[in-house]
C-alpha cells in the first residue's frame, strides 16, 4: 500500500462521521462484524436505521441514541441542547414512535466551559422537551481537561413503545416521496456562521422535534406511510440514497418541487454547496402510497411545522438503488455528498 493510501486508511477522518457512504462503510467494517451473533426478534444494528426495535409482547420497544458535537454550540435558530432533544425525539419518530416514554442525557464538558452557557443549553433542552411532550428521566455529567474536548458533547437516548414500526426500507414502486418542509436550512445556517462568511442573511436552523408532525401523517390514513427517514447529516440526498438502496427501488425526484427557502438557495449558490447535501434537523422524508399522498401532505400542512410539505418524487421498480434528479432541463443522478461539504474554489 502506498504512503498516501495508508494515511487515508489507517486513521479516522472527518468524512467517517459525515453521514455518507464513508460512515456507513466504517460502521459495517468495524461495528457490524458480529452484528448477528446474538439473534433477537426485531430491528438491530445491521439494519442501520435511525434506532432499534425490540419485540416486547405484542408491542415494539423502540430505542435510539445519538451524540451531539456541533460547532458552534449556539447557532442561529437553536443550540446544541435543542438539537440533542430534537435529534433523539426525531430518531424515535422516524420509526413510528411518536410518544417518547423517556429520554436520557449525558453531558461531557470541557474544563472552563462557561456556566451560563450550560444553563442556556439546559433551558433550551427543557423547552424542546415541552414541545415534544417528552422528559429527560436520567442523566450523567463528566468534565474533561482543557483541550481534551471541544467545549461540550451531549449524548441523548430515547425509548418508546409502539404497535407498528416504520422503517427506512419500506418504499414500494409507485410510492410518492414527501418532504415535510423546506430543505437545507440547518446545514446552511450552521455553515454560514461556522465559517465566518460575513453573509448578512436570515438563515436559521430548522431544528425542531417532529413527533407531533409525524403523528399527524401516520394517523391521517392508516398504513399510508411506507418508509421514513430524517435527512440530517448528508442531507436529503443521502437520505434518499439510503432509502432507495435499502428498499430496492429507484427514485425520480422533481427538482422544481423541492421546497427551498430563497435565502438558503442564495447562500448555497454563493458557497457552491448543494442544499440537497446540507443537513436538516427539523424535516422528515416520507414514502407514501400514491393514493394517500395528497391527504398526507394536507395533514402535514395543517401542522405548524409542516406548512411547506410537498410531494417531490416517485418510486420506480426499474433501476433499484438509483436516485435520479429531473432538473427540468435534463436528468442526472442525484449525487451523494462525500465528507463535509466544502465550498468550491472559483
Amino acid at each position: 500500500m502506498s504512503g498516501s493510501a495508508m494515511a487515508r486508511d489507517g486513521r479516522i477522518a472527518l468524512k467517517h462521521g459525515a453521514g455518507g457512504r464513508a460512515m456507513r462503510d466504517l460502521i459495517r467494517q468495524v461495528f457490524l462484524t458480529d452484528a448477528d451473533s446474538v439473534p433477537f426478534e426485531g430491528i438491530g444494528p445491521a439494519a442501520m436505521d435511525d434506532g432499534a426495535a425490540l419485540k416486547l409482547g405484542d408491542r415494539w420497544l423502540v430505542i435510539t441514541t445519538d451524540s451531539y458535537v456541533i460547532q458552534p454550540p449556539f447557532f442561529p435558530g437553536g443550540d446544541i441542547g435543542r438539537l440533542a432533544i430534537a435529534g433523539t425525539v426525531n430518531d424515535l419518530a422516524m420509526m413510528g414512535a411518536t410518544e417518547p416514554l423517556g429520554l436520557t442525557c449525558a453531558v461531557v464538558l470541557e474544563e472552563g466551559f462557561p456556566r451560563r452557557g450550560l444553563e442556556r443549553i439546559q433551558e433550551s433542552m427543557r423547552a424542546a422537551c415541552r414541545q415534544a411532550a417528552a422528559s429527560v428521566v436520567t442523566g450523567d455529567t463528566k468534565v474533561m481537561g482543557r483541550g481534551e474536548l471541544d467545549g461540550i458533547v451531549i449524548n441523548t437516548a430515547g425509548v418508546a413503545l409502539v404497535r407498528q414500526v416504520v422503517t427506512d426500507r419500506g418504499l414500494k414502486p409507485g410510492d410518492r416521496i414527501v418532504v415535510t418542509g423546506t430543505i437545507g436550512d440547518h446545514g446552511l445556517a450552521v455553515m454560514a456562521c461556522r465559517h465566518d462568511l460575513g453573509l448578512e442573511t436570515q438563515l436559521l436552523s430548522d431544528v425542531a422535534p417532529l413527533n407531533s408532525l409525524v403523528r399527524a401523517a401516520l394517523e391521517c390514513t392508516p398504513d399510508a406511510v411506507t418508509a421514513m427517514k430524517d435527512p440530517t447529516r448528508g442531507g436529503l440526498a443521502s437520505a434518499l440514497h439510503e432509502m432507495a438502496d435499502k428498499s430496492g427501488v429507484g427514485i425520480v425526484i422533481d427538482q422544481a418541487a423541492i421546497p427551498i427557502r430563497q435565502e438558503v438557495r442564495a447562500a448555497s449558490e454563493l458557497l457552491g454547496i448543494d442544499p440537497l447535501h446540507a443537513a436538516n434537523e427539523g424535516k422528515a422524508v416520507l414514502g407514501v402510497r400514491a393514493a394517500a399522498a395528497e391527504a398526507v401532505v394536507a395533514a402535514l400542512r395543517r401542522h405548524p411545522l409542516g406548512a411547506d410539505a410537498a410531494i417531490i418524487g416517485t418510486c420506480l421498480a426499474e433501476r433499484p438503488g438509483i436516485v435520479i434528479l429531473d432538473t427540468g432541463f435534463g436528468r442526472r443522478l442525484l449525487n451523494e455528498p462525500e465528507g463535509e461539504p466544502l465550498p468550491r474554489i472559483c
Partner: protein
Amino acid sequence: MADQDLLAGALRFRDPATARLMTALLTRLVREIGRAPVSVMHVCGSHEQAIAKYGLRAVFPRELDVIMGPGCPVCVTDMPEVDEAVALAQQGPRILTYGDMLRVAGSAKSLADAKAEGASVDVVYSVAQAVRIARESDEQCVFFASGFETTAIATAAVIEAGPPVNFSVLSAHKYIPPVMEIVAEMPETRVEGFLAAGHAATVTGWGIFERFVQRHEMPVVVAGFEPLDILAGLVRLVELIRDRRAEVANMYPRCVTREGNRNAQRLLWRVFKPTGGRWRGIAHVPNGNLRLRDEYAHLDARKRFRIDLERLWDLAPPSLAQSCICGEIMAGVASPNACPLFGRQCVPENPVGACMVSSEGTCRIWHEYGGHLDLGARE
C-alpha cells in the same frame, strides 16, 4: 427577500421551456452539419458543473460531443506544486488553502494526509479570509493559491494592499489562454471550436481570442454559466462551425466586453508574471503559470522558506497513479469511462487522480452525476 424574488423573476435564465426550444434548435443545427460527431470543447470546470448539475448531457444531441478540457484549476495543479505545499506544511508554517486542494495527491501524500499527521492546514473561502487569519495569528501563514486568472486577481489585490508580515503566498495560479493553444494543436484532439469561460473573459475581454481564432481557424464563443447561457453558447458555436466561420462570438455580453476589465488586468500583471510550467497530465504550457514578480519576493513563500522536498521523496509514489489517465481526460482525448480505475479503485472517497478530487474535475462530475448515462425521458 422581496428584492431577491423580484430579481429572480426578472432574470429568467432557468426557464425549462426556453431550454427545450434551444435544445431542439441545437439538435437541428448539428444535424445540418451532417456528420458525427461534431466535437467542441469547453475549458472551464464551472461549465462542466452547470452541464452536469442541470443534467444537460441527457438532452444534448447525440451527434454533439461536448468535451471538457483542462478547465479545472485543482486538476491541473501539478504534483511538484502539491509537494511544495505538503513539505512546507510539514516544516511548520500554517497552510491556508481552498477546500479542494486538501485532497489532491502529491507525489507521496496530500495536504489532507499531512493534516491528519498533525501539520497545520486549514481551509479558507477567500484569500481575504486567509489574510484575516494571519493578522490574528503569530504563526507564519502561507496561502497556497490555486485557480485561474479570475482567482489570481483576488490574490493580487491582497498582495498589493500589503498583507501582514507573517503572510506569504505559494502561487499555483494558472493562466488559461496559453493552454487553449496547446490543446488546439494536439494532434489527437478533434476539437472544432471552443466554448470559452465567461468569468475569465470578464477579466481578459473577448478580444484576447481574436488572434487564436485566426491562427487555429476555429470559432470561440464566450458563454456564461446559467443553463440557458450554456445552451445559447453551444447553439452559436455549432452555427459558426456549420457556416465555417472562424470568429469570436460573445454570448455573455451582460458581463463581458471586448477589452475586459483593464484595471483588473493591470493589477494581475503588476503582481504576477507568466512563466512556463507543467500542467498536470497535459504538457509543459509556456506562460501557463502565474508566479509573483520580483518586487513581491518578500511575500513569495518560495523565496521566504527553503522548501525541503527531499523528505517526501523517500516515500514510494502511489503505484495506482501510473494507470491514471487524467491527462488524456483533461486534454479531451479520452472520457472517464475509458479509464480502468474510474469508479473502481478511483472514487471520490479515495481519489487516485486529481480529476476525481475536485468538484470541477471531469471524473468527479461524471462519477457524481452519471456522465452520459441514459436516464430516461421526461414524463
